[in-house]
């Protein structure tokens, strides 16, 4: 077990290395020039040249890359070109909204999707199944921002129940924190719910055909016991895997949702940084997000043995 864990942890290192190279190459090949943006709306060409030199943007790429890697190893993610503040600090300030939105979306999706998926599998082929699956396909087919606009027009402008935009820290007011999260969570949650519901249904369908389910039913266990204790427990591994791999999808959605609802999270930070070519910030954010992705999936990998006793390392 321990050997496996160590091996898995070590195997993430090359992944992160690849991420670092990809990210670095991506951005340094891009044509936009942060110096021009910093100089402002009415700047002259000479100003821009000067700023380029100041920022070290005129040094060779290889030198810039190794300088950057060296800093990363010492935990220094560099400074934002514009804000002159440490990248990690910027990310730290933005973590709360993004984390809150991601977690609430996941919770929303799991609470909604797993029962729906189980129900659809249990009543496979009936109108219940078809309705649920039709909803799932549809949720997948409508752009997230349209769902967002629709919800805002309905719940904020027409009914006046919930705020249109923004984010309130949980430390400031728990009530406002929740109120501000409801619409974004629903917006983003629908897609994720659809994804999870489909996987749950598919996995459950397979398991419900297994012999041991038939045995359990024959033993006279109640239907809910069979479904939850026997079937769902065994279906949990693929479902949890999907939650993990769906994280990338979720973060993509977070970027769009944060834009719609003006939530000051990591997604907005990234978009702003990309539009302005703030290299250190983009590199830092993508690296951090990729690391989170890798770590979460590592943990999920390791947790399989908890959910499925058949899996041993």
């Amino acid at each position, binding site marked *: 077990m321990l050997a496996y864990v160590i091996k898995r942890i070590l195997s993430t290192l*090359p*992944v*992160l*290395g*690849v*991420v670092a190279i*990809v*990210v670095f190459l*991506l*951005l340094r*090949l*891009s*044509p*936009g020039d942060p110096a021009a943006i910093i100089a402002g709306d009415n700047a002259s060409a000479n100003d821009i040249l000067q700023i380029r030199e100041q920022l070290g943007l005129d040094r060779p790429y290889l030198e810039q890359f190794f300088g950057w890697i060296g800093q990363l190893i010492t935990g220094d993610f560099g400074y934002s070109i514009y804000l002159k503040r440490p990248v990690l600090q910027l990310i730290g300030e933005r973590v709360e909204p993004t984390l809150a939105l991601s977690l609430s979306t996941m919770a929303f999706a799991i609470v909604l999707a797993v029962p729906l998926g189980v129900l659809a599998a249990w009543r496979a082929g009936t109108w219940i199944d078809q309705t649920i*699956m*039709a909803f799932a*396909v*549809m949720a*997948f*087919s*409508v*752009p*997230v*921002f*349209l769902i967002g*606009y629709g919800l805002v*027009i309905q719940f904020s402008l027409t009914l006046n129940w919930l705020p249109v935009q923004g984010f309130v820290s949980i430390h400031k007011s728990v009530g406002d924190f929740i109120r501000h999260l409801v619409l974004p969570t629903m917006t983003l949650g629908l897609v994720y719910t659809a*994804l999870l519901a*489909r*996987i749950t249904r*598919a*996995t459950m*369908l*397979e398991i419900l055909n297994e012999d041991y389910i038939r045995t359990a039913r024959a033993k006279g266990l109640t239907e809910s016991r069979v479904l939850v204790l026997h079937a769902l427990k065994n279906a949990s591994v*693929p479902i949890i*895997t*999907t939650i993990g*791999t769906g994280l*990338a*999808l979720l*973060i*993509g*959605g977070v*970027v*769009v949702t944060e*834009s719609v609802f003006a939530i000051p999270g990591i997604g907005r930070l*990234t*978009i702003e940084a*990309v*539009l302005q*070519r703030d290299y250190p910030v*983009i590199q830092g954010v*993508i690296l951090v*997000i*990729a*690391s989170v*992705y*890798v770590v979460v999936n590592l943990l999920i990998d390791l947790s399989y043995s908890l959910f499925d006793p058949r899996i041993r390392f």
Partner: protein
Amino acid sequence: MTQSLQQGLSHSGLSATRAGLRRLWRRYPLSLIGGFVLISLTVLSVLAPWLAPFDPFEMNVVDRLREPGEEYFFGTDAYGRDLFSRTLYGGRISLLIGLSVAGLSTLIGLLIGILAGYSRSADAVLMRIMDGLMAIPGILLAIALMSLARPGIGVVVVAITIPEIPRVVRLVRAVVLSVREQVYIQAAIATGTRLPRLMLKHILPNTLAPLIVQATYIAASAVLIESYLSFLGVGTPPEVPSWGNIIAEGRLYVQIAPWNIVCPSVFLALMVLSINMLGDGLRDMLDPRLQTRVR
């Protein structure tokens, strides 16, 4: 697989197809509807130059933000351009992007996947690169890629394709690995069947079914992601009226001229929905075991 196709073709006669259709309708009604909608949308888009009543690029500033009516079926946008014509033309772009991304990513993914599944030394390197790409959320990667070159359909296609490749590679590699262990393949290797022949005869047919299903899902998500990129301001250039682009341009007017986003959105959603429905049906038809695979 090829054999069954040939059999199917040899049976063809009008009554036989009709019976076949009826059977399909009973078993896969959703995918048939999906296929039908998709074909209609495709025909509409392909015939856009003949169907569109106006030049989709012609600005008529006096007629801006007109409501849908007899002259302009879908109304006009903020530049006084006819939205119906733009939507028809937009279908071509969105379809093109969906098809190209699906085609490119499956093709590249297939090659890399076979290579990885076949050669253990290549596998280690390739899969690490794929893992690295997987770890960067697709939209972020696409956004970053978009800043690399002049915006154009080509760049959008590449930007959406790259994040999709690892998924295809994983799928193909898994199939290749499992096929490799089969007795008849082992036998084929033992009897000295050459690699290209092995691929063509045994491995490719086995990967085809899951690949087709995966390709439909990729096409659907490509159309959606294009609209996200346009929404975030890093999509196709405004000169190219893709659906995502039309929606992104029109979204400002959602409160005073909602037709600006309603019409193209309905088309976009219909297209994605129909591809997804078709994909679901194909998945069930081609291989029921595939139902467990992550889409």
